[in-house]
């Protein structure tokens, strides 16, 4: 039996990697939202000086990685690996950024769960002794996602009230073997769940069961109660997915109401910004983690956070063919200190 396994899905990192630096970049709309003060870099123009949105997204990711590495006091050459992924076909934002960064690169696809997925992979690699520092990153861009998954921007269509708004943003985290924390103490790898939602606008409802499954597995396998955490934060369920998750967690026998929130619900002011059910996209949990969570943990306002990034594993083709939306959620326990409690 592998000694680091707490159960089917949860792994305990015996020498927990430290999150030594973070970087976040957001677009203009996110920069007008309630979390604006926590972001390192707010773009004035969502083209970011490039000629296409795809290039802009890749540049955001590249800059986020560069800024995080710079903040860690290292150089690209002593970062052992880069774990990154994004929403664009063939994860081009990540691989095109990696082309210039010249760090050994592992491309990931977990849709909007990529921030947690990359941290899971990075921390396991460090704990396994295969590297002493890695960078984990992801990005999304409203306009590049819209054109790939939905309609041209200038088309005059109405959005259903449960639709979500893809976050324009990128986040990067540098994890290292040695550091003063916060530490990645446990990771829970999700299973793909599908409760049969077919409407690609209804992401929150499609992904909620995956979040519930992963949170439940995490709590059961670690033996922790929800109150162990100051914050249990899902990635991009939005207001509807958040309500469903709360209710389903109750059914599972966990009352998480006091400690639960969702990045998609936090990032925009729905009433003022016309974002319907809230934010979504890889960038959503990436910028909330690397902006808000990182800064609040540094200040000591948060000590234990469970980030549960959620991803909808659909493609436009599967939607047109009438398939339902399989979803996944990965959880990462981030703690200011190691070894207190269970």
């Amino acid at each position: 039996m592998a000694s680091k396994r707490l159960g089917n899905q949860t792994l305990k990192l015996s020498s927990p990697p430290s999150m030594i630096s973070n970087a976040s970049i957001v677009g203009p709309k996110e920069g007008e939202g309630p979390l604006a003060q926590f972001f390192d870099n707010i773009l004035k123009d969502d083209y970011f000086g490039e000629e296409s949105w795809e290039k802009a997204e890749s540049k955001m990711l590249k800059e986020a990685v560069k800024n995080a590495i710079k903040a860690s006091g290292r150089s690209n050459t002593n970062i052992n690996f880069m774990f990154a992924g994004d929403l664009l076909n063939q994860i081009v934002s990540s691989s095109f950024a990696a082309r210039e960064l010249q760090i050994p690169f592992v491309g990931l696809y977990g849709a909007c769960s990529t921030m947690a997925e990359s941290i899971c992979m990075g921390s396991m690699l460090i704990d396994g002794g295969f590297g002493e520092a890695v960078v984990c990153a992801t990005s999304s861009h409203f306009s590049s996602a819209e054109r790939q998954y939905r309609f041209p921007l200038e088309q005059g269509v109405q959005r259903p009230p449960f639709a979500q708004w893809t976050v324009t943003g990128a986040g990067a985290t540098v994890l290292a073997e040695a550091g003063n924390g916060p530490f990645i103490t446990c990771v829970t790898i999700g299973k793909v769940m599908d409760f049969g939602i077919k409407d690609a606008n209804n992401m929150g409802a499609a992904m909620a069961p995956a979040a519930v499954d992963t949170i439940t597995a995490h709590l059961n396998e670690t033996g922790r109660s929800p109150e162990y955490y100051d914050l249990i934060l899902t990635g991009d369920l939005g207001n509807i997915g958040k309500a469903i998750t709360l209710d389903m967690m109750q059914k599972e026998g966990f009352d998480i109401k006091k400690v639960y929130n969702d990045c998609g619900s936090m990032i925009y002011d729905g009433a003022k910004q016309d974002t319907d059910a809230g934010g979504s996209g890889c960038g959503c949990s990436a910028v909330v983690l690397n902006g808000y969570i990182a800064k609040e943990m540094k200040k000591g306002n948060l000590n234990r956070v469970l980030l549960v990034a959620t991803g909808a594993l659909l493609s436009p083709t599967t939607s047109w063919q009438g398939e339902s939306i399989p979803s996944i959620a990965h959880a990462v326990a981030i703690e200011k200190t190691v070894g207190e409690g269970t």
Partner: protein
Amino acid sequence: MKTQMSSKQYEQYIKDKLPKPRSLRNCIAAFVVGGFICDVAQFISNITKSYGYSPEAIASITATTMVFLGAFLTGLGIYDRIGRFAGAGSIVPITGFANSIVSPAMEFKREGFVFGVGAKMFVLAGPVLVYGISASIIIGFIYYLFGK
């Protein structure tokens, strides 16, 4: 996770958690904006009539002008905002048709004039054209056979 639901049960379960569609508000917005677009077209039609054009010419001039207006407002980035507010009110009139052709043409310009603009221009309007023209051919046949 203990909870297991079939897709039907889950759909039922989330039903009261989804926001209600704002049908009344949407209908009123569509009525007002759609009506206004028709008023503009009527206005153009009346003006051209006063210049003494034939009924066929009036119809063409009116349609062409409305298509131009739809395309122009799309280019200025205004039509999508009208559409978000008015829904079907701005999709159904001919201005909406213009919007559905110009918006992908603008969007896919980056992929060049052949594989971008040329290939993607009718990605939204294509189905409308295919089934619209097919229906008109069928109706034409019926009219030819029985209509006289």
